[in-house]
């Protein structure tokens, strides 16, 4: 199973509206992605909390439909 990069981005932005999302299809197979999510809303959150926010945005797809997502979260500089 796989997900389109645009769908991943849309889910993240729907939950974290100010997020800047950059997605790279690592293997070109629509199944292994790297995502960088930058949002002011991450300020004051631990790395774990930031990543949980993104996983929550993906609504349970992570580890299921979406097999591999290398995730980097950051606060705008």
């Amino acid at each position, binding site marked *: 199973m796989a997900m389109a990069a645009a769908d991943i981005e849309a889910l993240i932005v729907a939950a974290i509206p100010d997020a800047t999302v950059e997605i790279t299809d690592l293997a070109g197979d629509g199944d292994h992605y790297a995502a960088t999510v930058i949002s002011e809303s991450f300020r004051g959150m631990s*790395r*774990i909390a930031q*990543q*949980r926010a993104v*996983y929550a945005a993906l609504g*349970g797809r*992570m*580890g*299921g439909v979406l097999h*591999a997502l*290398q*995730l*980097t979260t950051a606060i705008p500089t």
Partner: protein
Amino acid sequence: MTDPVHARISDIVSSHDVVLFMKGTPLFPQCGFSSRAVAILERLGAPFESVDVLQDQEIRQGIKGFSDWPTIPQLYVKGEFLGGSDIMMEMYEAGELQKLLTDEGVIATN
């Protein structure tokens, strides 16, 4: 009411200073993310207990709820959930993982 699988996991993470829940074994990781997590710990010279979730379906499912984290690998240090391989890599690159493991007495100071 204690979930028996959560009780098992709790027992594992409290019995070892560093525990890595992974797919495969340190010698034969079955996933790139698990492989990366092992490489980081080995680079830091940190002894760790590994749990192959592919050999234990109960733990494979249970760990996700226990940690409130949807993916494998997962790292625990002194019973505390630290994160997955992306967080391990960020902490490693920032020197934070080495500092934490040193502060916790897991690896010796240089």
